[in-house]
């Protein structure tokens, strides 16, 4: 295989600082120049050579420099003598020694699966890859998964089953402007990735329980009942078929399984779907007329449709609709998932997922095991099998038979996992919790050992954005003294565990190995080099070695299934895992606001962002607020079967009468959410659960009247 083994020194030598890099946050990976001026101040300017943002940035991007200069930055490892003790500064090598000793001890006493690893969708491809290898080779554990399981795993499962390949957008983002009509199911890109809106130039249809900023710019907003997106997809497909919008030529030439799906949606006439979804049948007909009447159209899904215990089937429902309309694999048309996390795409390709090996290979595939074991220089028989999915892994921590140690990289599950109080309890039950992070996140604060690591503009590496375009993250500034890269942490621990020769702290060397490990897999990076990415401003995978130009549109001629056809898969609607009832009469749905990101570990430490979005809130309809007797800013107690929290009321007619919304960037929302899992993707049901609402605050209840 013609792959260079020598690291491309000119691009990656630490001494060579490049200003042109990408934003630390979402999957759009906006291009930006980062420069440290003589006085130490950071200047950020948008790049106009990156198609995803083409000169635009949102407030998060503009203010990201504060991540590099802020006081909250961890610069020295911390450790505590025991759980009752405080975290105290400790030397880096001493910290790694301590961790390695305890890991060795736990492994000896309880076996390799006593040690678990939890990764993140924000890690570079190099880190995600090496983390998977570190777990399987240095630790020998099957217990590794990551927070991407909470992100787009449902879309990944559905796309894999339909197309034989999961690449979020199987077309360049600039193709979206060529679509006459775009249907966005459960995505609020105007807040979550604002520059994305610049690509939505034509007719937009939005499916969302809230009239979000994105929905306000739509020609048609389908204000759906939480948890019923699948019924909507079935109803839309029913209409498409009965009103003659099916592209029968395309269906015959490019797909398989249509008859079973047609029969399965016969029972979803629009008036039935209306009763389930609350979306008027006339609005559904209008949506299908728009989609079916357009020469080019796209159907995109976001977390709103995906984060359900039936998320994979819901996405399949929308893919079935796209296939019936003849969209996937046609220029200017198609289905795509709008990936969320910065490296949500690359992070799901290279082996930090419980069931996966690099190159988007399956860990239970003997050929994949043999190939990857060959690259790693180990016996395939020594590679562990599939482990637990993210929530199941966290839920098992410290239980009999469950892991007794957890290493966390780039994730903050105390805030981001469903039923988060329970998860905090599981973390507390561990013998050892180690967290590598940039700041003292809520999860890091619970750790026995905290390892400060480098971040975006301080390191090299590759990120794969929502288009499947592999991008180069450049080291634009020097990291503060005393921190190490995640790769160095893994390599340091591996060395202490007797596997030092197999791990590197150098991203260029790791990427080179990733290329070989991914070669021949669905996500083949073997033809991608740092130089090429720099020269071409990104390369679309698959890009096998040997002069392959990369693959902007992988489905144009055939789908990567055994027969080249996309698969229709019949799916059936079912209600949310938890329906509203007399005790918990309202739906809670969760999501993001513009000025914060994920668990807020980064953004909640930036003054400008806190000014824009200072605290959590619960958004509700004025009628509901009136019924609760609360007005704007009043405290509201929100209680589910899993926990209770308080938030200030935000009152707006933009939300359904029966639904409240909470952002998940602060602790609280996920104390309430339901960990019911999708059977295929193992995605928890973040987007709908049943809650009880009451006026909150210390003065709540009868005493308040007396006091007033």
């Amino acid at each position, binding site marked *: 295989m013609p792959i260079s083994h020598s690291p491309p020194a000119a691009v990656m030598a630490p001494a060579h600082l490049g200003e042109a890099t990408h934003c630390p946050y979402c999957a759009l990976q906006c291009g930006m120049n980062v420069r440290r001026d003589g006085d130490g101040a950071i200047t950020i300017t948008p790049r106009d050579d990156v198609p995803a943002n083409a000169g635009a940035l949102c*407030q998060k991007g503009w203010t990201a420099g504060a991540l590099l200069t802020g006081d909250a930055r961890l610069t020295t490892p911390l450790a505590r003598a025991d759980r009752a003790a405080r975290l105290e500064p400790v030397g880096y090598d001493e910290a790694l020694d301590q961790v390695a000793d305890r890991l060795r001890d736990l492994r000896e006493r309880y076996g390799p699966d006593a040690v678990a690893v939890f990764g993140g969708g924000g890690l570079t491809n190099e880190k995600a890859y090496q983390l998977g290898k570190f777990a399987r080779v240095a630790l020998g554990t099957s217990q590794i998964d990551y927070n991407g399981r909470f992100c787009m795993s449902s879309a990944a499962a559905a796309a894999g089953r339909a197309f034989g390949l999961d690449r979020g957008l199987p077309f360049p983002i600039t193709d979206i402007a060529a679509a006459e009509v775009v249907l966005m199911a459960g995505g609020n890109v*105007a*807040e979550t990735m604002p520059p994305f809106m610049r690509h939505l130039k034509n007719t937009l249809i939005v499916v969302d329980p809230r009239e979000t900023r994105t929905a306000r710019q739509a020609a048609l907003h389908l204000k759906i009942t939480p948890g019923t997106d699948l019924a909507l997809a079935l109803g839309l497909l029913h209409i498409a078929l009965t009103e003659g919008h099916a592209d029968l030529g395309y269906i015959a030439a490019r797909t398989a399984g249509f008859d079973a799906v047609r029969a399965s949606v*016969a*029972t979803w006439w629009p008036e039935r779907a209306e009763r389930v979804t609350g979306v008027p049948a006339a609005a559904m007909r209008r949506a299908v007329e728009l989609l079916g009447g357009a020469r080019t159209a796209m159907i995109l899904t976001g977390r709103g449709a995906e984060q359900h215990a039936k998320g994979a089937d819901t996405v399949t429902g929308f893919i079935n609709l796209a296939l019936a309309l003849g969209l996937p694999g046609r220029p200017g048309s198609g289905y795509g998932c709008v990936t969320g996390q910065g490296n949500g795409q690359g992070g799901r390709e290279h082996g930090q997922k419980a069931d996966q090996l690099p190159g988007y290979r399956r860990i239970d595939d003997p050929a994949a095991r043999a190939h990857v074991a060959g690259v790693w220089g180990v016996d395939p028989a020594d590679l562990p099998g599939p482990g637990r999915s993210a929530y199941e892994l966290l839920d098992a921590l410290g239980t009999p038979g469950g892991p007794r140690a957890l290493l966390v990289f780039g994730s903050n599950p105390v805030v981001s996992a469903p039923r988060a109080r329970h998860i905090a309890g599981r973390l507390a039950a561990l013998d050892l919790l180690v967290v590598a992070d940039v700041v003292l996140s809520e999860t890091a604060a619970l750790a026995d050992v905290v390892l400060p690591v480098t971040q975006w503009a301080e390191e090299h590496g590759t990120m794969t954005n929502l288009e499947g375009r592999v991008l180069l993250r450049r080291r634009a500034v020097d990291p503060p003294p005393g921190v190490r890269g995640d790769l160095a942490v893994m390599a340091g621990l591996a060395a202490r565990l007797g596997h030092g020769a197999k791990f590197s702290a150098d991203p260029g060397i790791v990427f080179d190995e990733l290329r070989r490990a991914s070669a021949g897999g669905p996500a083949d990076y073997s033809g991608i080099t740092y130089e090429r990415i720099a020269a071409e401003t990104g390369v679309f995978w698959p890009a096998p070695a040997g002069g392959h130009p990369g693959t902007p549109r992988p489905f144009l001629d055939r789908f990567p299934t055994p027969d080249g056809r996309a698969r229709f898969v019949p799916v059936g609607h079912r209600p949310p895992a938890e329906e509203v009832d007399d005790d918990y009469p309202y739906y809670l749905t969760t999501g993001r606001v513009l000025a914060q990101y994920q668990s807020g570990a980064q953004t909640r430490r930036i003054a400008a962002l806190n000014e824009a979005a200072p605290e959590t809130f619960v958004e509700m309809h004025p009628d509901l607020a009136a019924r609760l007797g609360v007005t704007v800013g009043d405290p509201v107690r929100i209680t589910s079967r899993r926990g209770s929290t308080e938030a200030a009321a935000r009152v707006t007619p933009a939300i359904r009468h029966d639904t409240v919304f909470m952002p998940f960037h602060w602790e609280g929302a996920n104390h309430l959410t339901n960990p019911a899992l999708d059977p295929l993707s193992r995605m928890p049901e973040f987007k709908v659960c049943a809650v009880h609402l009451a006026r909150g605050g210390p003065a709540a209840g009868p005493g308040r009247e007396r006091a007033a």
Partner: protein
Amino acid sequence: MRLVVIGNGMAGARLVDEVRARDKDARVTVFGAETRAPYNRVLLSNVLAGTAAPDHVRLPEPAAGVSVRLGVTVTAIDRAARTVRTACGQVEPYDVLVLATGSEPFLPPVPGVEHAIAFRTMDDCVRILRRAGTAEAAVVIGGGLLGVEAARGLAGRGMPVTLLHLAGHLMDRQLDAEAGLVLGEALAGLGVTVRTGADVTAVRADGVELGGGELLPAGLVVLACGVRPVVGLAREAGLAVDRGVVVDDRLRTSDPAVYAIGECAQHDGRVYGLVAPAWEQAVVVADLVTGADPAARYRGSRLVTRLKARSVELAAMGETHLTEDAAGQVEVVRFTHRARGIYRKLVIRDDRLVGAILLGEAPTVGTLTQLFDRGGPLPGDPAGLLFPGLSAATPADSPVRMPDSARVCECNNVTKGRIRACWEDGARDLAAVTARTRATTGCGSCRDAVEGIIGWLCEQEEVHA
């Protein structure tokens, strides 16, 4: 468990699916009198209207292992032996028997009724369409839900249609008189001549005779005069039968081994003629007979009637006939705009929606249906439920009149006040304001608003200069 289901329609087929989803090993035999595989009867109106092809309304194939006997009529039930006997003499044993025999069209007792085609099955549908191909005009007898759908569908095929209804207004079971009138006007606009209070005295090969001797010529006469439950088998087997086969909250008949669901069943005094209750009942029976949920019970259904007729939007639910009472316990909210075919009525009791009619364009139909289904409390001012714009806040004011604290650029948290301050500080065009505030650099949608504010500030300066 050996489960035998008599009836392969919407209820029977759904029951089989639900049972197999819970118990893959259940031995299931289904007898269907029709020779066709089960189809979606709800969509027959669409087939009649030409918006669905006959083979597009097939129901999904039953799971492997289910024995389906198409065109086989069950002629007797031997409850003592727990067997059923078919027309061809075959005997099938059961542990659990479910009757899903549905209903049959009611044929009015008038001479010549055999010249008319009742609209009930796919075969009926095919016969109607065949005759519609040659007939110059059609008469539909019966102005209930199905008759209205049939008349609309045939009119959509371009033939003159007269819809005859005995009562004073169309769909009188679901609609009040005014709604019936507005519906008639809507249908008239679509080529259907509506005659209410029409007393049919005879059907002839060439048309329909009305009381008073008038003859309406028609080569096609369709009957949609309602249905009645098929209960003969049950009655002969000695099961308790009233209008339908009497069942309890478990959907059990007077014999605990025999259940009845769908249009042949009578629960709590009610016989349902819609598919949603039949499916709810199928779920309960499946839960019970497989043991998946021994506590499952059927408590009756809330009825939502939705007309499926192109260009006529109609939803009717609950107690639509109630009027305001003296005690003020019933509130009625009503809006009519006949010229546009709009009639909206809400019936409210104890702050709950207990009935509604929505005729014509109705953007709130989904919300109202769910409020009715769940019995949730209504908002203080129900007008917003008829006119969704009303309850919403006033739309964003023009950037010029908005307060300084209003956020103009959401993506970069830039208020009007900051733009004004920049302007006062010398930033007199978009590029200069953008450079200082980053406004417009995110999604880009505020560009017009920012330009508007700058332009307005410049104008103000000229005015005051």
